[in-house]
């Protein structure tokens, strides 16, 4: 850890040389976190200095600290990957006239983060190139900021008819081809407004956040520390365990809680199982987007036993409910280990077969090579994460950069490609799929004995911060927690990996063919969720009957009885 502190001191010195006395306070959060409190006027030059120090921007957190220090605070989070160090660049904004300098001109990837804190707590980023609304609904009233602490979590502003998002108009000669808000290959609502000339995309605009659920608000106003993991798990239908782990780690870090080694190993196993089923799911969707439904059907069939494993371990296919602050609520039963190994063997054998089939498919190559190119430079500037970053030759992986769970003892293989096209992202994911299988095996072989939960007896001290990252299948998820009173966080900020990755999309589809847009978007990895079981309630007798997988399959195959007819 000496090297972490050494690098931290170097970075603090460099920033101090650049901005002099405008660097007000240098402090340390948890051991891997350097906090730099700077004067508002020096924010941009401090950012430039951090970028020169090769710090990678993660996300911005805006906090309403009016009850603590009579101001708003803006925290830009950075990561120095090679040094395993987080840097928090923070500054205050006046409570009555909240303004800070925008850093989007220095870091294009800060675009959405800055629009988001403007929407959420009402601090204006001065000089932002695109200050339109990002997060709030189009009929949300002006001047009402939901993440301010005096805003009640259950307030519902009156809805207004006839409002539309402020979207860009197409350039002259181009017409609009809307992809979304609802579209066959978009699993979630999001609106890509493509400007096309014939078959060529000449520009686009984006409107998202149709599904904003106010999760962060619930975290700092209604729920308590140990209730939040179950909400965090529901952020994503695929990488639920990733978000609950990431949140728990942030709190554990802030409070200085040591998690038992066995729990860290089991977290690793669950995280990698999630990567396996997620990458298989993604391969299928990518195939489907290209009309190659055989890939979809086969990979989803291969994926199913992994879901059954999750069910056997936790009782659920998804949303396992296993994580809690300090470790796990449920141990890994010894009886399931041989089954895991058996399923892994089968998945590995079939994955290799799929990989070989894909690599030899010339039509598939024709559709993915040189398609949707994300250049290394742009990937770095937009701060793209996960397989899209690694496919463009950016060697980042949260498991290596900020080892969490048991990754310090079980390092993953860094899978990178240089070309930055859709094919590279396919190759990266297939490599990772096979590496995850190896990792689960390693973790099981070295699984230590012992407890899985450190009981948290003391109150978690308030106003500390914890930053945690987890390498989700789609890329790095970031959770920031500032502890608070009342047994709940003062502020909880979640950044899912798609947040930076989507911002790279416009450059990736510039002058692409329309046909390449869905697969380019798909190559950033969409989300999907499905149910296997149905609970039926007889309205007359109130009897509950649960249909099993087999029964449902049989019912759906029986002619004339599908579709709910009885």
């Amino acid at each position: 850890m000496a090297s972490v502190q050494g690098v931290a001191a170097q970075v603090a010195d460099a920033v101090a040389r650049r901005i002099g006395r405008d660097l007000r306070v240098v402090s340390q959060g948890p051991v891997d976190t350097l906090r730099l409190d700077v004067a508002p006027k020096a924010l941009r030059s401090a950012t430039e200095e951090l970028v020169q120090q090769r710090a990678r921007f993660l996300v911005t957190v805006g906090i309403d600290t009016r009850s603590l220090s009579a101001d708003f605070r803006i925290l830009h989070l950075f990561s120095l990957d090679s040094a395993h160090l987080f840097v928090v660049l923070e500054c205050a904004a006046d409570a009555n006239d909240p303004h800070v300098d925008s850093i989007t001109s220095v870091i294009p990837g800060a675009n959405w983060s800055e629009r988001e804190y403007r929407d959420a707590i009402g601090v204006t980023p001065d000089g932002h190139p695109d200050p339109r609304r990002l997060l709030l609904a189009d009929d949300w009233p002006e001047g009402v900021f939901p993440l301010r602490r005096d805003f009640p979590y259950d307030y519902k502003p009156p809805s207004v008819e006839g409002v539309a998002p402020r979207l860009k108009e197409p350039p002259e000669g181009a017409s609009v081809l809307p992809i979304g808000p609802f579209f066959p290959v978009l699993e979630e609502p999001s609106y890509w407004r493509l400007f096309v000339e014939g078959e060529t995309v000449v520009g686009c605009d984006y409107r998202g956040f149709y599904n904003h659920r106010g999760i962060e608000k619930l975290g700092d106003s209604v729920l308590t520390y140990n209730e939040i993991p179950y909400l965090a798990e529901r952020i994503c239908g695929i990488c639920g365990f990733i978000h609950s782990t990431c949140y728990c780690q942030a709190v554990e870090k802030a409070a200085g809680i040591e998690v038992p080694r066995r729990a860290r190993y089991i977290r690793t196993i669950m995280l990698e199982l999630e990567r396996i089923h997620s990458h298989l799911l993604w391969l299928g969707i990518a195939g489907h987007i290209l009309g190659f439904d055989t890939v979809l059907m086969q990979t989803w069939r291969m994926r199913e036993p992994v879901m059954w494993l999750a069910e056997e371990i936790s009782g659920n296919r998804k949303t396992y409910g296993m994580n809690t602050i300090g470790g796990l609520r449920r141990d890994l039963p010894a009886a399931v280990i041989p089954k895991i190994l058996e399923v892994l063997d089968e998945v590995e054998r079939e994955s290799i077969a799929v990989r070989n089939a894909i690599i030899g498919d010339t039509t598939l190559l024709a559709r993915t090579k040189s398609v949707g190119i994300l250049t290394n430079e742009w990937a770095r500037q937009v701060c793209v994460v996960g397989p899209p970053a690694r496919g463009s030759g950016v060697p980042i992986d949260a498991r290596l950069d900020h080892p969490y769970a048991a990754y310090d003892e079980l390092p993953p293989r860094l899978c990178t490609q240089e070309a930055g096209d859709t094919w590279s992202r396919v190759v990266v994911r297939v490599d990772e799929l096979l590496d995850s299988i190896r990792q689960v095996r390693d973790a099981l072989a070295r699984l230590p004995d012992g407890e899985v939960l450190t009981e948290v007896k003391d109150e978690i001290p308030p106003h500390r911060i914890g930053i945690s990252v987890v390498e989700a299948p789609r890329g790095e998820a970031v959770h920031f927690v500032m502890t608070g009173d009342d047994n709940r966080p003062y502020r909880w900020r979640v950044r899912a990996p798609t947040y930076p990755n989507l911002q790279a999309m416009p450059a990736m589809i510039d002058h692409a063919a329309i046909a390449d847009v869905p697969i380019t978007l798909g190559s950033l990895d969409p989300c999907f969720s499905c149910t296997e079981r149905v609970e039926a309630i007889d309205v007359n007798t109130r009897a509950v009957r649960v249909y099993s997988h087999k029964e449902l399959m049989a019912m759906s195959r029986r002619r004339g009885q599908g579709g709910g007819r009885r």
Partner: protein
Amino acid sequence: MKDGPLVTLALAMLNVAVALLLSPLAEGVMRKLKAIVHSRTGPPLTQPYLDLLKLLGKEDLRTTGGLPYTLAPALALGSVLLLATLVPLGTAPPMGFAGDLIVLIYVAATSAVALILTAFASGSPYAAVGGSREMMMLLTVEPVLAIALVVGAVKSGTLSTGGILAWNAEHGPTISMAIAAVALFLALQAQAGKLPFDIPEAEQELMGGPLIEQSGPRLALFRWSLWAKQLVFAVLLVQVFVPWPHVGILAADVVLTLIKALVVLVLVGVIDVVNPRLRIEQAMGYYMRVALSALSALAFAVIGM
């Protein structure tokens, strides 16, 4: 034609009936095949019939008026049925005449034209993109069909489909006819709207392209015309270019032809299920190469091979 008008009419009715009534079954077989490769159970073989019945029973919703738009579905199906009477089924084409080959090539393109008309009339941006893709496909696939048939014409020295069939049945396989047959088979993949050439409809990109605004009976007629078209083309391929064995008994020849056509469609189905979709310019490049290769068949035909 040597037969009387009543016989001609009966044969024409037979061809139309086969195209109408058996094409959904052929589609059902292809769907079943797809399901097997997917490790699925798949729908019953009769599902396409049920689809048609369901669609025909629905409300007729139109996004726009205008004569071309209104008549397009009927034009699409009608042209395919007319095509069926120009295609030999077990014997010479019922409505055949000297020079019917030229008419056949034109009629073959009509259903695609109807689809393009609908696409541009329906006013959806997806349909517009799909319509222009359909047009580009038509312009590159149609020459392949024409070249293949011209090879047959040069070889047999006649401009009637029945003449080519008779010549082929009598003389046995030749190099030029074999190349033309392969070219026609490759064109069939696009004519049937199957992967990797379902580019105009491209569900994941254009949500059905030209057909996006079609529903109910109109969609049923378009679907039916597409299914009938793939069967009629398969019959054309196996009759004109692979007419052996030619028994001489009508019923036996009809059954044989249908079996061969089904084999061809199963091959089309296999190609469909193991390929992702190409981009439009990739598909056009592919069919231009096919057309150029098919020209070599013409050269062989001229030197008598």
